[in-house]
């Protein structure tokens, strides 16, 4: 969270066209401290508190971007963005196309995703597959502070609308963050750790779970190559294919719902382009295809954990 705040603070200083819209992002500094201290620095004109009317202020952001501004819309929970899908899918994603590129649409839509803290089903969604499905949107889903800062900065410097999604359980995670002009281009997956027996693709919080699983398996001599796509649109399948060429086995871990999701997309592309590299069926591990329960024990059962990731890897190695 501090990492993205750094990037946002620096970019707002660099580019006066950037302004933030959202509920409680002004004096309050954001429900998740995403804009802490910015109001004092940049004032109410650039940190606009809004009423609870997502469709309205997303439409406003779209118009502002058409007029040359760079709006950052802070949704707190990405679940709330769903009220504005009409503006996002029909206008923000299409304006550049419809204007033949004469209008740019540098809108940053950011919000928290993910299951945890008994936030229940209206505050636990992970909707990156939904956005990645729509042409014209870019979707970044970082897993660590350094990536979050680099990707957010890239988003603030591009022409395209970006949906920037951070897992709520990652907001407090600490990690080294490069200072200065640190930027990560979209569409480049990170090989989080190299390995030779099996390839695991994991996104967001699942990268941490997978890392824990890798550490446990390493003690038994099982070598896992872990890949973090970092952006879902564009999606870097080349890096996954290069890894599968080595390992022959692929597991995709994503907390979002499985059907028509990240796992399906990667599996399809790998099967199309690398069938004869596969030594086993491609496996997917997703969140349960169900509304997220409030009950803590039930909530714990619907999202993948380090244990279930470890089990899925073992199972894949049996194939």
């Amino acid at each position, binding site marked *: 969270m501090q990492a993205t705040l750094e990037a946002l603070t620096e970019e707002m200083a660099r580019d006066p066209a950037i302004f933030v819209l959202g509920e409680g992002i002004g004096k309050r500094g954001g429900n998740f401290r995403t804009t802490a201290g910015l109001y004092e620095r940049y004032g109410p004109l650039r940190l606009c508190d809004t009423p609870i009317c997502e469709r309205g202020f997303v439409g406003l952001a779209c118009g502002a971007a058409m007029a040359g501004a760079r709006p950052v819309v802070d949704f707190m929970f990405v679940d709330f963005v769903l009220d504005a899908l009409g503006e996002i899918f029909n206008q923000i994603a299409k304006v550049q196309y419809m204007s033949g590129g004469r209008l740019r649409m540098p809108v940053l839509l950011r919000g928290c995703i993910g299951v945890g803290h008994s936030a229940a089903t209206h505050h636990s969604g992970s909707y990156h597959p939904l956005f990645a499905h729509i042409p014209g949107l870019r979707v970044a889903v970082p897993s660590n502070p350094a990536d979050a800062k680099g990707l957010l900065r890239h988003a603030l410097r591009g022409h395209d609308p970006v949906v920037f999604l951070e897992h709520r359980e990652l907001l407090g995670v600490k990690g080294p963050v490069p200072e200065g002009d640190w930027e990560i281009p979209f569409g480049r997956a990170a090989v989080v750790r190299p390995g030779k027996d099996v390839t695991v693709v994991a996104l967001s919080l699942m990268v941490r779970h997978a890392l824990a699983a890798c550490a446990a398996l390493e003690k038994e001599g099982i070598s896992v190559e872990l890949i973090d796509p970092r952006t879902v649109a564009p999606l870097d399948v080349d890096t996954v294919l290069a890894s599968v060429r080595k390992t*022959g086995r692929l597991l995709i871990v994503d907390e979002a719902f499985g059907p028509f999701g990240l796992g399906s997309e990667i599996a399809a592309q790998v099967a199309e382009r690398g*069938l*004869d*590299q*596969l*030594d*086993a069926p491609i496996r997917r591990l997703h969140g349960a295809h169900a509304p997220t329960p409030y009950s803590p024990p039930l909530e714990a059962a619907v999202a993948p954990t380090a244990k279930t990731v470890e089990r899925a890897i073992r199972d894949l190695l*049996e*194939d």
Partner: protein
Amino acid sequence: MAIPIAVPRLGWSTEEALFTGWLKEDGAPVRAGEPLYVLETDKASQEVECLDAGTLNILAGGPKAGDKVLVGALIGYLLQPGEVVPSSAPLVVSAREGKPAPAVVATFAAPEPERSRIAISPRALRIAAELGVDWTRIEGSGRDGRIVERDVRAALERGGKPGAGSVRRVIAERLSRSARTTVPVTLVTTADASPLAGIRRRLKESDGPDAPGYTDLVVKLVAEALCRHPALNARWEGDGVVLQEGIHIGVAVDTEAGLLVPVIRNVPELTVRQVAAASRDLAARARRRALRPEEMQGGTFTVSNLGAFAIDAFTPVINLPECAVLGMGRIERRPVAEGDAIVIREQLTLSLTFDHRIVDGAPAARFLGELAALIRGPGAALGL
């Protein structure tokens, strides 16, 4: 067209029903919607309505009251004026309870015996092809016995031990097929290889260790002889002789896993040095088991050299589907009558086995004579 009357599915899981009788006579006119016959399932008895109009034709041998009928079974036809029952009308009823079942029901295909299909991962399939491993005999260690990469690699390692490997099995199969199907005849002659020995010495001096060997020189001369005697550059395919356009010569390589025969392509277009380079590369990779399957296919003639083992003559086995194979013996200095004098000459014994189905003895002998002459006086044939 005659409209077939078939037993409908009366319930979700109904597979058969009890036929309790026709409600119409054979030959009676029937209107759409009229009840036609009665079926009884475990739940209820039901009159089955006719969906179309026509004249009822009850199949001879069709169900009688009390017969069990299978869902989908054909029991009769509705005919329009002038129509007849299709000639291949199948018989349909299943047995009256308690009786042995007659041959029944053409509308249901007999269940095929389960095919035992070997499952192999796409990766394992690719690697098996690359390494030339016969995966159909490998036991898989993946889930449900699927063959995976490690099984192919393990099989390859086992193949390195004599007698256990898949290479041995392939050799066994191919050679016995050759022995079963060809009519082999072996001709033996001795050629004066002194000029060849001289060429070889000069090549050694100029090219060093990479100089073309006797086998390379002979391969090149064989290609020349085949150009002049295309009848031996042929295959038996199906039920006839097919002359081959290209001249691709296989060279037998002794490896730890067994005999492999990589093929040198288009020999007439290669120089002797190119033949040597190709042969060296193929043999090295054969010993490493790194040949691609297609590099061991498509040959039109084979050369096998046992000279290094002090063998003079032997009866090489035809490498199917080729027509002939040449066995090279050792090159040895022997006393030879030249006019009335006895001189020492480098002598090479050649053994040619040919398939008498494809070519007769005289043309084969002419080919061998030509080859011996080329060895005696290679001249321009070697292009050196």
